[in-house]
């Protein structure tokens, strides 16, 4: 019986197989890229706010400590967003007539809260807790970046689970002395960190918690 397929069909077949594999790989790579990209993570996306509050101005120029506004970072899972009264503590005196601050004054007078856009938004099945991270020597800047240099805040990191796990599995790479937690500029060399990290992990009794119920429940 004569052959049904000509010899060239082999090449077509091979090309098809390779093409399909390549297409699948490309699709996966594309999906991965999109998923890890800024559209989904919102990494580096500058968020506009009802009041163009500048961390750079308040922290770098005025020297206000993080905890003045985020007063719960050491106490609760939630770091705290300042009530209008905190803003007005100063702004009833300085920049009291500024049009930029009108929403703050309106809120103060009407009792209607300000509504901010959340920058760091974890999925609802993730239970992050600020207090334990601060207590164990994690600096603000490690996760949030140099907020003191941001006018409007963006999300510095992906906040992907792999990113969390990197530190949860190797805390010595990121831990810092407790007196440097609110120092945004703390920047040890790799050598210094390699020397200091393991010591601090021991001193602060840091556990490498990477089981699921650490964050999910």
């Amino acid at each position, binding site marked *: 019986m004569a052959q049904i397929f000509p010899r060239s069909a082999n090449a077509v077949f091979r090309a098809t197989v390779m093409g399909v594999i390549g297409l699948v790989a490309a699709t996966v790579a594309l*999906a991965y890229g999109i*998923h890890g990209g800024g*559209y*989904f993570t919102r990494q580096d996306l500058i968020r506009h706010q009802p009041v163009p509050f500048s961390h750079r101005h308040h922290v770098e120029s005025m020297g206000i400590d993080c905890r003045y506004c985020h007063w*719960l970072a*050491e*106490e*609760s*899972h*939630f770091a*705290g*967003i*300042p*009530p*209008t*009264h*905190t803003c007005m503590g100063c702004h009833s005196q300085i920049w009291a007539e500024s049009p930029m601050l009108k929403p703050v004054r309106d*809120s*103060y007078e009407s*009792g*209607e*809260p*300000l*509504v*901010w*856009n*959340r920058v760091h*938004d974890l*999925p*609802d*099945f993730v*239970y992050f*807790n600020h*207090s*334990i991270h601060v*207590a*164990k020597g994690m600096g603000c800047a490690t996760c949030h970046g140099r907020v003191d240099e941001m006018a409007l805040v963006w999300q510095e990191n992906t906040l992907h689970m792999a990113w969390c796990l990197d530190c949860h599995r190797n805390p010595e790479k990121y831990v810092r002395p407790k007196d440097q937690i609110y120092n945004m500029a703390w920047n040890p060399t790799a050598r210094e960190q390699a020397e200091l990290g393991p010591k601090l992990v021991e001193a602060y*009794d840091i556990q490498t918690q990477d*089981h*699921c*119920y*650490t964050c*999910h*429940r």
Partner: protein
Amino acid sequence: MSENNADTGALEAPTHWTSLEELARTPEFEAFASAEFPTAWEEARHSEAGRRDFLKLMGASLGLAGLSNACVRQPDEKIVPYVKMPEELVPGKPLEFASAVERGGYGTGVLVETHTYRPTHLRGNPEHPDSRGGLHPQAQAGVLDVWDPDRSRQIRRRGNVSTWDSFVREMNEVIANLSEQNGAGLRFLTGQTSSPTLLRTFEAIRQRMPEARWHIWEPVSRHHMYEGARRAFGRYLEVRYRLDRASVVFDLDADFMGAMPGAIRHQAEVLRTRNNQDFDRWCRLYVAEPTPTVGGSAADHRLRIRSGEAGALLAAVARALGLEVPRPKASVDGAFATAVARDLAAAGRGAVVVVGDAQPPEVHALAHAIHAHLGAAGHAVVTTEPVLAPVVDPMQSLRDLVSAMNAGEVETLIMLDRNPVYDAPADLEFGKALSKVPNRVHVGAHTDETADVSHWHIPSHSAFEMWGDVRSTDGTATIMQPTLRPLHDTHSPLAVLSIFSGENEGTDYDRVRKTWKERLKGDFEKTWRRALHDGTVPDTAFRVRQPKLDPKVLKGAPPPGPDGLEVRFVPDPNLWDGRFATNPWLLELPQPITKLSWDNAVLVSPSTAEKQGLEATDVVELRVEDRMVEAPIWVLPGMADDVATVHLGWGRRSAGPVGSGQGFDAYAVRSSQRPWNTAGKLKKTDRKKRLACTQDHFRMMDRGLIRAATTDHYASHPQFAHAREAHLPKLTLWKPWSYEGHKWGMTINLSACNGCNACVAACQSENNIPVVGKEQVAKGREMHWIRVDRYYSGPVEDPVLTHQPVTCMMCENAPCETVCPVNATVHGPEGLNQMVYNRCVGTRYCSNNCPYKVRRFNFHLYADWYEESLKGQRNPDVTVRGRGVMEKCTYCVQRINRATIQARVEGKKRIETDSIQTACQEACPSRAISFGDLNDPDADVARKQKTPLSYALLGELNTRPRTTYLARLFHRNDELPVPTPARQTESHGDAAGKGGTHGSH
């Protein structure tokens, strides 16, 4: 399973069974028990869609599932800070307020867990005498009422939206018009109350309008208790049982751990002692009742009697005690009466006869005579001033109101939190009489049956939106404080009354404070703050008053019960008199004994059913006098013969989209003459009603699950719980886990469990567990993480009941973990078997492989993601699950994590012993559930697991569960014949052995 069928056929009838179907091993039961999930195809086959549609849908859903997972971007979120930060609040941490929940005039102290002042969960106030830390489901579910989307939100006048101001204006006109006649024509209708502020307000109204009348209506009242005391002591007194001082308790048709006010305290006092193996201090519990109750489940001896025979039985006991009472006409179980009498006599001061509120006053009076005779009066049974005030017979009060309405004497009727159009006895024809009242005002949380026919409807606050006060059964007052401002345009009954009392300046807060300013001595502000903080007002408990017994009570004979079929009306364990019928948690909660969900039924014993030619789910016509209602039959082992028990509170016509039309309305055949038990007839129709009953759900089959013995048998055979365990080689493929830190474990004491469902309700509230509806429950898809299995053993007619709460066992060798293809269920370092929702793809392999059947699958989007108001109730520390994921008990990991983080922030290495309580443990009035660190020798759970009573469910499977059970012990009286537990233990030990040898899966 199929290879076992031949064996199971050869097996003798099970020793512990959950249903008559299981006992008979019907094919339906086998099919239901062996098929864990009805397959999607099975379901589709019964639906209208054909095979092609099914395949299309499957394909489409696969494709869409892939797409939706890839393309979902988190929606933007907002942060809304306070304008001015409340001082005591730490956002992210719960804040608790002491308050109380009320039922029938009595208050139970609760601590309200709030998250930014949103009430999310309740627990019993350990400082409160009627809670002592425990909380029953009705109170527990109260937190959902705040967030109920079907709550009435608007003031209505003749069906149109109106305002509070126009209501006040119109009521002031009413007052002005009636002032000349001193308020004649103005009537109020309320429930029974103990609130000092409400009483003070009514007193003010009386002074202002002496001719206005106050009526009290309570479908389930305690008036017979008061009336019994009046006959015995010459005046109305509150009877309180001090069961902590009792050594023998005889429950005479009382449901003293369920329906009776003070039930949580009773349960705590009797059952908490069962957690210690100091048997001399155990209280022996006799229960004589027509229908099994939670008390009957905990009983050492249980006797089935008709309600109408209770008086005769008590008379026989009294005669055996040497009291000169008339010989009872009805025949009673003499051996039981004699044995109880002898035991009561031996207990002396510690003897208690608890008489049901539905029993006639003569029986109550006779019990007082027995207590006086034995010296228990003033010791284990005390009397105080009545807690409810004024003491009136609600039935008479309602009757007076109806005749006044019919006579045209009522011009304005104010009904506060009452629904008499639904729950008044049928013969009074309340609705008809009401239509003759020209001005009808209804105040209530829902637009219920009464609101529908009222001119004015004022929506009322929920319990946690208002100020108030209430007393407990010992008189201790609690100030009810709000945790949040009213969500809607609602008003309190007190505010409505204050229009009439003239105290309409100010708020409820001012009114309650005014009441207590007059009463509290010393520094008022200090005491007030203390009372709010503690949840009890100091020194408000009533003093014990012990008047002399009138010897005449011995002469009175209780009226004979009805002949023929006795129809009993009892409050529903979940819905009570119908007021909770809008609460989906309570509608779905399987009832403690029947395990019916979303329905009530006419309960009859197996032999009565046979005699009448009835089967379960048959629809019958229940006829009482000339009234009739159609209702389904449910055959309940343990019922007295020739008794039909019906639960009130169902068949609501206007209870919102959730509660309306569920079950049947027993009020339709209830008469005001005989509201508790009466003669009736059942007439079979040719129809059946589908009922959702959970008793056959999640079966583990009879494999030595319940182990029990008498305390004497335990003394001589301490290892009895393990006697018949199969000793199979403990082989495992996996390396054993080691735990350096904590190792969490749980133990449930079957002796202390009476199946009250407190744990189930608490878990529902704590862990954001959705309701699924009747159709889904019927398919075995209820989502409760903890279920309470109810087992029968012994004769079909007169079985012993045992309840067993079953939750995730947190196995060491967890069968679920090994089969999950995506590692969505894994073992944690502290021994928790972790369920990770965000990894779960819904294969359901884990559930299939779980021998305990504790995993729950979200077949649909059961949690309501879209109803805004329900979001407020959810525990923010627990994920709200979506469709297609598995879930199960987590040992309340959110509480473990909170404690762990707190301890580690404070620099502690370990969490303090027994400082974490799971929600179920916390709610349990009997403290039957222990939870803690098995690595900590001081932990309660570690100590309990070391006793020989501790056994694992299906231990022969070598799953090594973390949760163990303490075998049930009966503190029996040797004089009374009962199925001997020793023999029972052996026989179901056999079953365990057999189950083990052919338990091939």
